[in-house]
Each structure stands twice: as structure tokens, then as C-alpha cells.
């Protein structure tokens, strides 16, 4: 039952120790990715095994083996595999691809996998801290770059505050019910759902704040832009995709597997957070000139849309939220993949304007970026549109038409900054970085990377494909909950 986690742990240790002597980043990355492949395989095998033998979905009150755990784990593993594969050249080039880097990423994956299966507050807490701490360290992995360290400190301190609040909430819930394991706790909460005490409400709110921080939802979003901008690009991708999935897994576990009976407490709050997030994310992104920072605000807005589905607290709403999460992750992965491919030695892509005329130099990459931007903006027929559409439809079905309209209006506001990138890559002219070196334009390939290019194309293609044929994925998401 713990084989996937065991593989990741073992691989992390091996990489940590071999990394002391071995300096070949490519080899280490290959090892890490290979272990992730094994983990995926193990996850699937265990799932099929337990499904065939009708094993219990709960193991000793600590460990879930249900559909949610399976889907979350698999998504985390696949995303992690993509993130590692896309970042190989970048980490090598930025000189951060040491053994520690890959060991930390695997520790982070380990923490995320634990979180996805956690059926007990202790397990959840340990998993959460494991991946958070690993990511704090990863953000600071470029130890000579000042803003990286600054980002790490900010992330660390705000994250610690959020964990403190989360723990405080857990302690209050524990005090009110005497339970730390999810299944009995949910039963108890179901009994007292109507006559809950202030203690429980406080606990729920504190937990909500902790999770909202991890998701990067306004007003607990202040860390997001700074960390996205300051962190190395590959680590930023890590935070923007896998860590978000893990945060979503926590959200699912806590709000759906524990606090669902107390929906009356948290649903209005989540509504508020969702709308605020969409507003803050979409408007603040407009004023950004830094690509990573813009993506950060975009992620804040996307998490808002996600919460808009979550606040409905029905099975189908959670499925749609999962679908939205997947669409967001693939979209972000695609966008950052293109930028990762373009990090040239003399020409870092930091600002949006560095992408000027990308179409003229790399039409394919420009097209993939276009797909990503359209998908994130929610333009049909891409996956992002489908996801937004599902959420809006869900809201309308539940008679929350006001929210649906607000969300759509703010989507139009949000479309502005995505389209601006498309304008820059398609309609602006190339500008040489330096008049003395006319051959070097900002959008230049880091190196010819067939694997990473194929991965980027795969991500972009899946945005289009899943946008046109979303039914299977949607069906899959519906079966999870």
C-alpha cells in the first residue's frame, strides 16, 4: 500500500547520497524521472489490485486508498514527471541541478503523495509540511540570487503562519470532537452539524484559512506573485502545478471528506474568497509586465474559479472543480513549458515584452503558447473554456446566476492580459537584445531539446484535444467523487 511512497523515498535518498559525488544533472534528473515512472506504475497496479480484490478504501484510520487518492496521486506523479522533464536543461543551465535539488523535489512529491492519501490530521500535517518545507528550500536553490532568497523567506514566513493557523484550527476541531481521524470525525460532525459550537466554527475557519493560503486564494494570496517572480522558473512551475494539485487534494480531504457536513459554515466564506480571488487575480494581472508575475495573478484568479465550484459542495461540483484543476494545470504547464524552452544564455525571458515576435522565430512554440493562453483565458474550443463552461453551468443550475455573471464578466477582464501576450508574440516585431549582437533575440531557444519540445507539444495538443473531446475526462472526474 505504501509502495509508491516507498519508491519515491528510496529514490530521494539515493539521489541525495549519489548527488554528493555525482555532478551530472542529466543523470540525476533521469533517475528522478525514472523513479516517478515506477511510482506511476506502482500506483496504478495497487489501484487495480485493491479494486479487483475489493480491498477496503481505508487502512487503519490513517490512510485512504480511494478514488480521490488514486486520481490525486496519479495527477501529481504525471505532472511532476512533466515538470522534471521540462526543467532538465533549465536546471543544468542555471546550475541548480544538483543532487539536493532533485532529492528535494522528490521529497516534495513524497509529501504530496502522503497528503493525497491522508486520512488523519497527523498524516495530513506531516505530508503538508514535508512538501512545503521542500519547496521553501527549492525556492532558495539559486543561493546567489537575491530575489530568490527574498522569495523563499517570504514564502517561508507566510507559509509558517498559514500552517500555524491550520494547526490551530485542527486543535480546535480536535477539542470539540476528540477525533483526529477523518472518517469518525466526519460521522461525529454529521451528528452535530446543526448544533455546532463556536469552537467548531472557529476551527473550520482556521482550517479554511490554512488551505486557502496553500491554494493561493485572495486575501491569502500575497505570497503568490512574489514567490512566482523570485523563484527559479522550474521551481515556479513546481509551485504552480504540482503544489497546487496537492493543495487541492488537501482541500478535497478537508472540505469534502471531513467538513462537508458543516457546509453551512464554510460555503459562504468560500464564496467570498472565490469572488475576491477572481477579482484580485484578473485585475492585478493586467498591470503586470513580468511574465511569471502575470502567471501568478492568473493562478490566483483560476483558484477563485475553482473555489466557485467548490462552494457548491455537491459531488458533481467537486468533479467539476477537479476538471477545472486539471485544465488549469495543463494550461499552466504548457505556458511555462514554452518559456522554459526559451531561456537563452544571453536572453532570459522575464518580461512579457521579451516574447516580442516569437511567432517569427519559433512559430510552433508561439502556437503552443497561444493554445495555452487561449485555454487559460477560456476561449473555445480549448480545455479551459470547457472547464469554465462547466462551472458556469453548474452555478446556473444551482440558481447562483449572479455569481455566474460576475465570474464571466471578470473572465472578460482577464482575457485582456492573456490576449496581450498573444498580441506580443504574433503582432510585435522582433527586437534585438543588443545592437552589437544582432543575432541574439530575446525569444531564443536554450538548446535543442527534443524531449522537452515534445512534452510541450503534448501539453498544448492535449489542451486542444481535450477541449474538443472533453466527455471522457469529464466522465472520469464525475466517477471520482
Amino acid at each position, binding site marked *: 500500500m505504501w509502495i509508491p511512497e516507498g519508491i519515491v523515498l528510496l529514490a530521494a535518498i539515493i539521489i541525495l547520497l549519489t548527488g554528493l559525488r555525482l555532478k551530472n544533472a542529466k543523470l540525476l534528473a533521469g533517475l528522478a524521472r525514472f523513479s516517478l515512472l515506477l511510482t506511476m506504475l506502482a500506483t496504478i497496479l495497487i489501484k487495480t489490485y485493491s479494486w479487483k480484490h475489493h480491498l477496503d478504501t481505508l487502512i487503519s484510520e490513517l490512510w485512504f486508498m480511494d478514488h480521490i487518492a488514486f486520481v490525486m496521486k496519479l495527477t501529481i506523479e504525471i505532472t511532476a514527471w512533466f515538470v522534471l522533464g521540462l526543467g532538465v536543461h533549465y536546471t543544468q543551465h542555471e546550475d541548480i541541478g544538483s543532487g539536493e535539488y532533485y532529492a528535494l523535489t522528490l521529497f516534495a512529491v513524497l509529501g504530496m503523495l502522503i497528503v493525497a492519501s491522508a486520512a488523519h490530521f497527523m498524516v495530513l500535517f506531516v505530508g503538508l509540511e514535508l512538501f512545503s518545507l521542500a519547496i521553501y528550500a527549492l525556492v532558495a536553490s539559486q543561493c546567489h540570487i537575491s530575489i530568490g532568497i527574498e522569495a523563499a523567506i517570504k514564502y517561508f514566513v507566510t507559509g509558517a503562519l498559514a500552517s500555524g493557523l491550520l494547526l490551530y484550527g485542527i486543535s480546535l476541531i480536535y477539542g470539540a470532537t476528540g477525533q483526529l481521524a477523518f472518517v469518525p470525525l466526519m460521522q461525529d460532525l454529521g451528528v452535530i452539524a446543526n448544533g455546532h459550537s463556536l469552537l467548531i466554527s472557529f476551527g473550520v475557519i482556521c482550517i479554511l484559512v490554512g488551505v486557502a493560503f496553500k491554494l493561493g486564494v485572495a486575501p491569502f494570496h500575497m505570497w503568490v506573485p512574489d514567490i512566482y517572480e523570485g523563484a527559479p522558473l522550474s521551481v515556479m512551475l513546481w509551485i504552480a502545478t504540482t503544489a497546487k494539485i496537492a493543495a487541492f487534494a488537501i482541500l478535497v480531504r478537508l472540505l469534502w471528506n471531513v467538513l462537508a457536513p458543516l457546509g453551512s459554515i464554510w460555503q459562504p466564506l468560500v464564496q467570498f474568497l472565490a469572488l475576491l480571488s477572481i477579482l484580485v487575480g484578473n485585475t492585478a494581472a493586467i498591470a503586470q509586465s513580468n511574465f511569471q508575475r502575470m502567471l501568478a495573478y492568473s493562478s490566483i484568479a483560476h483558484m477563485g474559479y475553482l473555489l466557485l465550484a467548490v462552494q457548491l459542495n455537491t459531488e458533481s461540483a467537486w468533479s467539476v472543480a477537479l476538471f477545472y484543476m486539471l485544465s488549469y494545470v495543463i494550461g499552466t504547464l504548457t505556458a511555462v513549458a514554452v518559456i522554459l524552452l526559451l531561456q537563452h544564455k544571453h536572453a532570459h525571458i522575464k518580461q512579457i515584452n521579451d516574447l516580442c515576435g516569437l511567432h517569427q522565430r519559433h512559430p510552433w512554440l508561439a502556437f503552443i503558447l497561444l493554445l495555452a493562453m487561449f485555454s487559460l483565458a477560456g476561449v473555445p474550443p480549448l480545455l479551459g473554456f470547457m472547464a469554465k463552461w462547466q462551472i458556469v453551468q453548474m452555478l446556473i443550475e444551482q440558481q447562483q446566476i449572479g455569481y455566474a455573471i460576475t465570474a464571466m464578466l471578470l473572465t472578460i477582464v482577464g482575457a485582456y492580459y492573456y490576449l496581450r501576450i498573444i498580441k506580443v508574440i504574433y503582432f510585435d516585431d522582433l527586437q534585438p537584445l543588443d545592437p552589437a549582437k544582432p543575432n541574439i533575440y530575446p525569444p531564443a531557444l536554450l538548446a535543442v531539446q527534443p524531449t522537452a519540445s515534445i512534452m510541450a507539444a503534448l501539453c498544448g495538443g492535449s489542451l486542444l484535444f481535450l477541449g474538443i*473531446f472533453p466527455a471522457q475526462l469529464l466522465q472520469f472526474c464525475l466517477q471520482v467523487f
Partner: protein
Amino acid sequence: MNLLPFALLALSAPLLGSLLAGFGGRLLGRCASHCLAIGLLAVAWMCSVTLLYQMWYQHAPALDWMGYNWLTSASLHIDFGLLIDRLSVAMMMIVTSISLLVHIYSIGYMHDDPAYQRFFSYMSLFTFAMLILVTANNVIQLFFGWEGVGLVSYLLIGFWFKKPSAALGAYKAFIVNRVGDFGLLLGLALLLYYVGSLNYQPIFAKAAWIAQQHIIFLHGHSVRLVSLICILLFIGAMGKSAQMPLHVWLPESMEGPTPISALIHAATMVTAGVYLVVRMSPLFSGSPVALSVVLVVGATGALLLGLIGLVQNDIKRIIAYSTMSQLGYMMAAAGASAFSAAIFHLISHAFFKALLFLGAGSVILAMHHQQDIRKMGGLRSYLPITYITFLIGSCALVALPPFSGYYSKDAIIEAVHLAPIWGGHYAYICLLLGAFVTALYTFRLFFLTFHGSPRFDIDKEHLPHESPWVVWLPLVLLAVPSVLFGIVHVQEFIYTSPEGWLGQVVYVMPALRNYLSDWISEFHGVFIATAQAVFELPFWFTIAGIMTAWILYLVKPSLRAKYIKPDNLISRILRAKYGFDSFNDSIIVRGVQSLSRLFYHIGDMRLLDEGIVNGSAHRIKQLAQWMRCLQTGYLSYYLFVMALAWVILLATWVGWF
């Protein structure tokens, strides 16, 4: 045999070709790009051939494939589905064949163009969109294809977008088509509202019910729903098929490269309107009013637009006006419920009109992009292959037996002659006169271009010479069906039943079946029909047209100067193109402009710009800046905000409690 894989392959191959040529163009290089595009198109063509074979010889049943539900919102289902029946197969065949030949032709014609790969990409994309249009099993998908071909047409008319006239032509095409699309969309909306579905099958199943519905307007006037829907749909068809008065964009579209004029603006896209009317025949057959409108508009266009062709001097524009005139014939046939004749004329027209355009392109190449026929002449000896194929195309166009145009056009004129619907006589006269006009302008063009003495500066070093084989091969390949298509297929296609070969696909109003039966009973085999030509009026009108052209332009050009004053009323009217353009310019454009200026100053500047659009954009930008300022960068401040939000959440909850 399962037809589905072939249909899917036929659809996807051009899309793939387009993507490869478009995105991989630079990587692949010119040769690989066009080879890929042409190869994939050939695959699509083979698939179409297979489908046609199955339909024609094996009598395969129609395939209505509900592929995939993309989106559902209440009663609106947006599906991807295919309807492979005789009509769509015939259209697929035409689209892929002409497209394939035009692709090959473009290798030569676009040889020196820097945006070579882009051109091939657009053409394959066009083919894909057109195939989507004709194979759709629901109107949404049809609309998608409809807009798709419109878009590519816009892109291709403006292909040389640095040329102002090309850019303007592209604009004009785009805007005029929007007028048509407006009607189409309204029609579709009415269908969705009343039928509750946009798939052909439920729509047609409810056609009888729709025919009995009435819509009551403000003052109690009731209008038959079906007439309203059909006329709205026909407005869409008018836009796309360049029927009067929405024809003004087609001459301008000639600014695009010539292969495009052949593919899009002669053979395929412009016939989409005819296709729409035929496809929607169960609806149109429920409304005699709509049929009459189609008939009258078509016939009027057939005559009047042909007349304009007489005074044009640009080789491509003459053929463009002839296209509009021929589209009028097709529409008239559809209006007379002779749907098979309409489609048959569509097919034969596609062959010979593509041939004429490509021939014109060959001439233009030889003349170094000189398009004015007054500056040509005597090209017969320089361009022998072009000359012969152009002659074949011209004969087919003017409907001389035994060329293919004869059978289709003769069937149309006869059907319209017999049709017992309102406007039938008028239409018949128009079409008859149209035959004379067609012959006149076609041979005027032909004689001025190929006969007589050269009116260009003969440069001994650079004599006009025949184009490379990639250019003339498609001409030869197109000349074959231009000659043979009619004689071989006319009997089975048109004269088997009142519906013709299309059979179950189309639906004819019961009241009109009798006349159609009479019409087909007059046919006694191809050879008799061919021989009978001499006893029929249209033939002599055609001969008269040719003779007139021969005398006026070849034998005694002086007669022209003597009898036709350049500034007499008729030629002034014709030259002004009946004033459509100036009407549009002075009344519509200027009216709209002054109206919009009014709105601009009052509504836009004050209300919308300052208030809503710019205002909101400005507000949002302000908000964005403000949000930015909130992100101060100070850690203590972040922590403060977090803690404050936490406290507020707690406090709100206590307040609620």
C-alpha cells in the same frame, strides 16, 4: 461497407495538411510543404472517390453519424456529426477534385511568392472547412464550416495584403458576408426556437409541422413561419453565393491570387448557398413564397449580372460576373424545385469555371500579371494548350452541345419554363436572355484574348510562352470533365425521378411533382437530347450570342464604334454596375457613416467610450494599478493582511452567529 472511416479521413487529411504546411512550413521548406499538402489532399480525394463509388454504383445507404456531443446547454446541443448522403458526397467530390487540381496548379502559379507555404496552408484549411460544411449533419456544424470558408476566403482575398485593393476587397467580402450571415443566424435561431434542435433529422422530421406555424407580428399580421425561416436562410445563401443585391463582394474578391478565384470564388465556396438551399429543401418545399423568391432573385441575377460582364475589361472580373450569373441559374433551378438540376449545374460549372479561371491565370502569367483584355489579343499561337482548354471551357459555359454545360443549363431552363410557380415566366425570359448574354461576354473575352492581333508590346526577347506543366496539366485534367461530364451522367443524375439522383435527400413539394414528372418525361436519352438542341430556343440564343461576339469583336470591330456609343445609357448603366456600388457607397456606407458619426459623438464618445468601454477599461486599469500598490513587498504587511483577513472571517462568523 463502413463509410465512416473514409469520411473522417477525408475530413482530417486536409486539416493535417494545413497544419503541417502552416506551422511546419518554414521547417519543411517549399517542396516538402506542397508535397505534403497535395499528398494529404490526394488522400481526401481518394476517400471522396470511394464514397462516391459506394453511393453511385453500390447504392450505399446514407450515413447519419452522431459522432460526439461537444457541449450541451439546455436544448442547445452542439454536436459533431456527419451526414454522408448523395448530396454531400457529390459536394465532397467536387471540393476535393477542384482543390487538388488547384493545389497542383498553385505550385506553378505561386512559384515566386514569398508566402508560398502560407498559401498552401490556407488552401488546405479552406478545403477542410468546406468539407465540414458539406458533411455536417447539423446546422451548427454547417455554420462552423460556413464561417470557416468565409474566414479563409477573407484571408486569401487579402493574401497580398500589402496591396490596398486586395485588403479592401477582403474587407468588402467580409462585411457583405456578415449581412448574409446575419440572416442565416436569425434563421437558425428561429429553427432552434421552434424545433428545439439543430440537427437536420429532427428539423426535417418537423418540416410539415413548421409549415403550419404562423408568427404574428405587432399589428396582427401573421407570417408563415416556414417562409420567414426560408427567406432568412436564403439571405445567408445570397451573401455566400453572391446573389443580387449581396453580390458586390465577388468582383472585388478577384484581387486575390487566381488559383483562389478558381477554387473558392468559382467552384466551391460560392456554391455553398446553393448547397444550403438544396440541403434545406424540405423546408423550402413547404413555402411557395420562398421558392418564388429564390427563383426570381436567381433568375434576375443570372441576366443582370451577366450583362455587367459585357462591359468589363479585366479578364478575371468578366469570369467573376459570369460566375454570379451561373450561380443565378443554379438558384433559379433550386427555386423551381429542380434540385438535381441545380446540383448538376453546380458540378459541371465547377469544372468549367475552374478551368476558365485557371486558364485566365495561365494567360495572366504569360502576360506578366496584365489582366486587361484590351491589352491582349492573338495569344492563340503563344499559348496553344491554354487556348484549346479555354475554348473548351467557354463552350461548356455557353452551353453548346455536347459540352457539359449544355445538359445542365438546358435542364434548368426547361424546368423553369415549365415550373408552375409565381415568377416562373419572368424567370424563364431572364434565363433565356441570359443564355444570349453569356455567349456574348464569354466569346467577347475569348476573341479579345486569343484572337486578333496582339495589342501588347511585343518584346522579341520575352515573348509570351506556355506555362510550366504544373500549370497546364490541371487545365487539361479539367477540360476532360468539362466536355464529358454532362453527356455521361446527365441521364442518371437528373432524369430518373422528379428528385433526380439525389432521391431521398431532397424533398419536392407535392404540387410540383407533376410538373417535374412532365419535365423528365420529355427526356429521351442523351443523344436525342443532344440532337434536339437545334430545335430549342436557348441553343439559338447562344449561337446568336456567339455570332454577335464574332462579328463585333473579330470580323468588323468598326461596327462597335458605329453603333455602340461608349457613353450611351445602357453601357453607362452597365459600367456603373446598376449603381449597386455607388448606392452602397453613397447611401449605405455614407448613411451608416453619418449615422454612426452621430452615434459616435453622442453614444460612443460620451456614453460608451467615456462611460462604459474606455471608462470600464480605465477603471479596471486603475483598479489594477491600485491592486498593484496593495502588493507592497513588505513581509510584515503580507502577514498583517493575512491575519486581518483571518480575524475578519472569524468576526463575520461571530456576527452571523
